[in-house]
């Protein structure tokens, strides 16, 4: 193989920044739809299963409603994901030209998952009423399986960027590739598990939020209550699990990517009795204006106050990630995690005592924004993960600067792409909002009686 790095010209810092922002925008956009693509099928299938089993009219209506939204969301998710496949090459040809063969396997497997998802969604949406209820229900199962599988595959590709394995580098050339070792790298278990749970939380809290608004507006019939309780319960059950998994992810970092964890927590000096800093800004190698809980970080990481926590001082200055944004992103995610835990506990308590939702409207008000909060947590988590990996695109192996497309004018591309995303966002929100009010049935959807 001809070596690529020799041929790469330099990219200007402005173009590198544009490429990174474009990638962040496209990924940050796609991930919202992707979460719904992973989580919504579970809700849909549950509602349809109840409807088929018991002939329950309300579950039937819920399934139909959600199906319509999923039809639009999936289309937008699919096209926004396709852009990402292009961007891997358009923006990061230096990465793909060298490492494409190492990390290609999960992408190839993901291609299969996408096929299954798209095909069975087509069948499921359009063959409603043309298959027996049982067959129709079963035709939805591959959507769920493929959705979870695709999240696993794509995140294992990202995990590889954090823990590159499965190849040797001999004088600038890749040798001894082992695609399976690359895919099942040490970062794969914590990252994939955390992401898949996040997808279900976004779907659950997000859907419940829509019905929380309806309940607040006085639509208190069984249909709206079910639309709230079913998705909210799914998300609420997963929230404590997610926090345990998040802790697992942090422990993983302390062992494998200590520089990232140090940036998350704003720790400069390596040593025992490391405090936990809440808030603050990192200037001149120090956290300022932060609320500090003494020794708490050492306790969290090593279970005793004297546990040594590695700080940024062990990493050469040129290899350190930017601390303040990463720290804030991490704290946002963790904060939201605990907020959602409280909300879930509130519902559990009230259900245990009275078999009903909490009486105060404040519960519903908070529940109405829980979906947005879950999305913010996901975006913050990814910002922490990706920015915390900087300046590496492949941790310890390739800098982001070496990966970027050296063509001039990436800025112009970024501006155009951003405009398209603005229009896309407005249109998607508009169409979805009109759908919830709407009376219209999509043209090909047969009216099932």
């Amino acid at each position, binding site marked *: 193989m001809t070596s690529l790095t020799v041929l790469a010209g330099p990219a200007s810092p402005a173009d590198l920044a544009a490429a990174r922002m474009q990638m962040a925008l496209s990924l940050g956009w796609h991930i919202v739809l992707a979460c719904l693509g992973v989580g919504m099928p579970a809700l849909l299938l549950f509602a349809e299963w109840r409807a088929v089993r018991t002939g329950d009219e309300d579950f039937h209506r819920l399934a139909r409603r959600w199906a319509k939204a999923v039809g639009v969301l999936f289309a937008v998710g699919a096209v926004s994901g396709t852009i990402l496949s292009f961007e891997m090459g358009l923006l990061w040809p230096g990465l793909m030209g060298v490492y494409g063969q190492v990390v290609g396997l999960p992408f*190839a497997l993901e291609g299969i998952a996408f096929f299954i998802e798209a095909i069975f969604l087509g069948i499921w949406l359009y063959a409603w009423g043309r298959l027996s209820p049982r067959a129709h229900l079963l035709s939805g199962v591959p959507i769920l399986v493929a959705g979870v599988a695709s999240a696993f595959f794509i995140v294992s590709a990202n995990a590889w960027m954090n823990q590159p394995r499965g190849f040797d580098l001999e004088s600038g050339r890749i040798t001894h590739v082992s695609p399976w070792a690359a895919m099942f790298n040490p970062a794969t278990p914590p990252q994939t598990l955390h992401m898949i749970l996040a997808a279900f939380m976004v779907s659950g809290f997000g859907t419940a939020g829509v019905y929380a608004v309806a309940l607040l507006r006085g639509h208190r019939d069984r249909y709206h209550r079910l639309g709230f309780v079913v998705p909210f319960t799914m998300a609420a059950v997963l929230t404590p699990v997610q926090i345990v998994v998040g802790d697992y992810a942090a422990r993983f970092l302390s062992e494998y990517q200590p520089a990232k964890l140090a940036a998350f927590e704003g720790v400069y000096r390596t040593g025992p009795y490391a405090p936990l800093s809440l808030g603050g800004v990192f200037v001149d190698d120090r956290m300022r204006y932060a609320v500090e809980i003494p020794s708490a970080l050492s306790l969290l990481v090593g279970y005793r106050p004297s546990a040594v926590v590695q700080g940024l001082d062990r990493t050469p200055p040129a290899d350190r990630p930017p601390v303040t944004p990463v720290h804030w992103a991490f704290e946002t995610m963790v904060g939201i995690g605990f907020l959602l835990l409280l909300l879930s506990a509130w519902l559990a308590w009230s259900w245990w005592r009275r078999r009903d939702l909490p009486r105060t409207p404040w519960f519903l008000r908070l529940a109405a924004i829980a979906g947005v909060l879950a999305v913010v947590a996901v975006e913050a988590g990814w910002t922490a993960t990706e920015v915390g990996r900087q300046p590496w695109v492949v941790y310890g192996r390739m800098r982001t600067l070496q990966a970027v497309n050296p063509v001039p004018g990436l800025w112009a591309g970024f501006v155009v792409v951003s405009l*398209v995303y603005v229009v896309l966002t407005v249109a998607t929100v508009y169409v979805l909002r009109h759908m919830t009010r709407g009376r219209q049935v999509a043209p090909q959807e*047969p009216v099932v009686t």
Partner: protein
Amino acid sequence: MDAAQALLAAMWLGLTLYALLGGADFGGGVWDLLAGRSRAGMPQRRLIEHSIGPVWEANHVWLIFVLVVLWTGFPLAFASVMSTLYIPLTLAALGIIARGAAFAFRKTSTELWQQRLFGGAFALSSVFTPFFLGTVAGGIASGRVPPGLAAGDLVRSWVNPTSLLGGVLAVGVCAYLAATYLCDDAVRARSPDMAEGFRRRALATAVLVGAVALGGIAVLRWDAPLLFRGLTGRALPLIVASAVLGLVSIALLWWRRYLLVRGTAVLAVAAVMWGWPVAQYPAMLPPSLTYLDAAAQPVVLTTTLAVAAVGALLVLPSIAWLFLLQRRMPYEPERPA
């Protein structure tokens, strides 16, 4: 056959399927654009929607498959193409967003102005996207994409005679395929008038695409001599077969044998598509980078082939079921209230 050849063939099969299935979906958008004013064009637009609604997302995954196989199996070729042809590929990507999203939005919108707006975006991007993808093919085929990161000319690599030819041909082929498929769909929707309309369009595009292709030979001879030599040499049987099948399709259209046309039109397009790699073999990025220079390590190639094989076992029967269900789906000329 070595593993790299096998993977190349699998990738090209994927690209062919994308052209034949996804291409027709784009072509549907082209006819949507030309269907006339809102009210008069309504039945045609509804037929187009009926034909591509359930399948376009699945059809579109073939493109993702091709991209992934290219970057896994031939990373150097992928990096070179994507970096040099940054502009047309970005535009094609944006076209893909606009088309898919607008199509889904139009289907759920209720007001005429919304349907017009989304319909317009859907139809226009259906023309632009294949055009830009065609210019990419032209740039590669005429040897304007050298190996290396952005090693080729950012503009001339796709603004050149062969690329222009590629773009126009791509749009023409999509439109032609869609028109022939829609003839058959219209008959099954019991709408002989519409079938006649699409038959006329299919005939007209067939003649037009044939003429452009013939004229294109002259362009290639002057602008892409290497490709020209391959097409008139080793790939000649495929090119002749395509021309013959094209003529047969015109005759079948004339006699209204729509189901058969579906077959011959598909074969004619597939023959040209395979003519290109055969003509430039073993070059992947002409003139000098061969597929072996660009290929990944053997274990990567065999793993990808194995994944593709397992994938085919899962995906092909599912697609067959989807297409079968779609064919049986009754056509409803009016939106249910």
